[in-house]
Structures are given as structure tokens and as C-alpha cells.
């Protein structure tokens, strides 16, 4: 687990990098904002409404799919250690086959309902 101490050090180094970079900018860059440069950029046209706009719900369907399959993928990792095991190897193959098979039904269902096709 000592590797994670190094990873902590690496994260601190990354934060330090960003801080030093922004400090350099603070010292070197001019800061002369005018209202026009601070306005929301909408391709040269005057901005309409506020920045928040409603976007399509279809993105949520992808997120649903991902969350479900991400947790499925989680169990693949411990599996890597078990598959070579003399006692559990074949049994775990069958268990994982059923587990993934059930979820593939979900993916097939999603595809059949046309959620992955836009018009």
C-alpha cells in the first residue's frame, strides 16, 4: 500500500503545478477585462437568455446504461484473481457468465426499444 503514499505525493505535485502555473500567469499576464470580453460568447451574436438551457433527456438513457454496466464491471476485477484457482475457476466462470448474461439482456432490451437510435 506504500504505492498510494506516492500517489498522494503525485496529487500534491499536480496541485502545486496548477498553483505555480496560475501564479506565473498572475504575475505575467495583463488583467484588463472590458464588459465585451466578459460576456458569454455566442458566435458573435448577442447572448439570448441565460447560459442554462434545457437539453435532451436522451443523454440520461446513456448514463443509466453506464451506471448499471459500471457496477457490473466492478466484479470483473476480483474475478481476475479467482479464475486460475483450482477450486473456484470453473464455478466462477459459470457465475460470471450468468451475471453478465443477465445484464446483456438489459443491453439487448435497450437496443430493441430503439433507445440508441436518434431520428
Amino acid at each position: 500500500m506504500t504505492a498510494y503514499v506516492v500517489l498522494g505525493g503525485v496529487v500534491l505535485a499536480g496541485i502545486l503545478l496548477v498553483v505555480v502555473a496560475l501564479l506565473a500567469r498572475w504575475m505575467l499576464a495583463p488583467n484588463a477585462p472590458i464588459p465585451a470580453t466578459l460576456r458569454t460568447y455566442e458566435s458573435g451574436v448577442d447572448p439570448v437568455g441565460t447560459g442554462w438551457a434545457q437539453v435532451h433527456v436522451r443523454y440520461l438513457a446513456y448514463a443509466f446504461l453506464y451506471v448499471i454496466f459500471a457496477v457490473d464491471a466492478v466484479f470483473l476485477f476480483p474475478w481476475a484473481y479467482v479464475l486460475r484457482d483450482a477450486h473456484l475457476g470453473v464455478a466462477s466462470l459459470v457465475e460470471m457468465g450468468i451475471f453478465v448474461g443477465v445484464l446483456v439482456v438489459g443491453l439487448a432490451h435497450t437496443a430493441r426499444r430503439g433507445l440508441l437510435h436518434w431520428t
Partner: protein
Amino acid sequence: MGAAMSVWEVVLRSVAVLAAFLVLPLLVGFMEHKVMAHMQARLGPMYAGGFHGWAQLIADAAKFVQKDDLLPTAADKGVFRLAPSLALIPYLVALAVVPLSPSIVGADAPASAVVVLAATAVGVLGGLMAGWASANKYSLLGGLRSAAQLIAYELPMVLAVASVALAAGTLSLTGIATEWRPWWLLWQLPAAFVFLAGGCAEIQRPPFDMPLADSEIVFGPYTEYSGLRFALFLLAEYAGIVLMSLLMSVMFLGAWHGPWSGPLGWLWTILKAVPIAFLFLWFRNSWPRLREDQLQRFAWLVLVPLALVQLLITAVGVVMMR
């Protein structure tokens, strides 16, 4: 790596990883300048630094630092400021666990393959935060596209990594590369393809650059960013190319396996990563952008099933050969 590690060693390792993180993306960026130029029958940068414009990106960095860093009035200031770091630092963490040779590795975590995946999964938040905090419709749309794309392609990548981890019987990248045998090139070929496509989408390079799509939504989540913060996003993109190329090399191409691999192992790992990085640049020059829905369909109906079939092949192979 011994159980006890002095503070100095931790500092030294962190600084070494940081140095690699700053130098390698510059090399890839320069390679892109030149490769792209020659593919388009141009010369590319020729002046900065003298020899074929080698210092062009350093000059660019000096320019970015001196540019006015705009903070739009309507933006959510705190989140807006934080987003570039959140896009950048995960790649640094991921790079820290990638081994160049059995002994040259920043942090040899027991489950380093999962560390890489967890880090890139956290990186998704960077684009989403940038898109939302910019208070710009293009940005929000780009941020959503970016997050939807990253999560859609994260999954095939997870499955591809799981496949090699199964084949090697370990979650450590060092362990995977040690167990690697030349015939894995064939056995793990579908996983390698899935990882390459997923990796290309993960770093949002053409043909998977819908989140940026300059002709549709200006520059996606980065529309409102300027100066140094924008440069940090760019650095993250090139660090992503470095990371994905090295991972391909370590997991699928055998990393340090090759003649004289003892002392020169690290050189093999890097030499195997260079063609992959070249591929990413080549893709950008050869292929047009996909459409948003085509992108999602490709992930869910091609890559995920392919990766699942690969998992089955790997698992049955491991059980048969045991």
C-alpha cells in the same frame, strides 16, 4: 518497492512523474505539429528554437501564460476555476502507475490497472464542470456530450482492461506486462482494438471529438476558456495521448519484452508507444467526425459486445490452459 519509504523517496518519485508528465505531452504535441503538417504537404513550425522549430510548444506555453485570463461575468467562478485542474490531475495520477520497466514505475500499486480506470472516470467531471460553469449554451451542451461520450467509452475500456487482467491473473500493470506472451497479440487482439477505439474517444480526439465540434458548438466546454486555463485543458489532451499510448504498450504490446530487455526495457516500452501515438495523430488527419448518435451506437452496439465476447474468449482460454 520496500515497505518503508522515506519522505525523500516519495518527493523524488512525485517530481519524476511530474517531469515526465510535462515533457512527454510536449513531445507528442510537437510530433502532432510535424506529422499533421507533412500529411497536409506543409512544413509546420520551422523557426522557434532553430532546428525544425523544436521549441514551438515552449514558445506557445510562454504565450499562453501572458494572455489575459477571462472569467465570464455569468460564470460560476469557483467551479469555472477548478475545472481545468480536475481535467488535468487525474491523468497525472494515471501516468504515475504506468510502468516503463519492472523497476521504473512511479507508484507500483497492487491494483494499478484499476487505478488508471478510476482516475480517468474522475476526469469526466472536469469537462462536465467546465461546461456547466461557463454559463454558455454551447459549453453546457459540449459538457454533456463530453460526459456522455466519456462514460460510454469508459465501459468498453474497463472490459478490455479486465480481459488482459484475467489473462494475467493480476490487476497490477507491472504484473500484466510480466505475464505477457507474444501470442497474446492474437489472443487479445479484439481487446486491443476496443481499447484503442475507447482510448481515442476518452481523450476526445477526432473522429471522436463531438464534445468540441468547432463547427457545431464553437469549442464545447472550453468555449469560454482562454489563456492559461485553456492551455491546461490542452495539456490534459496531450497527456491523454501519452497515457493511452503507454497503456497500449504495457497491456497489449508486451511493454519491455524484447531483445536486451534487461537494461533497455524502458526504451522498448516507449518505442512501442510511439507508433500508437502516431496512430492517434493519423486518425485525426484521416477521418471525419462521427455524429453524436453514431458515436453512442458504436460504443454500445459494437465495442461493448465485442469486449464481452473477448472476455468470454479470455476466460475460457484461461480455464482451458490452467
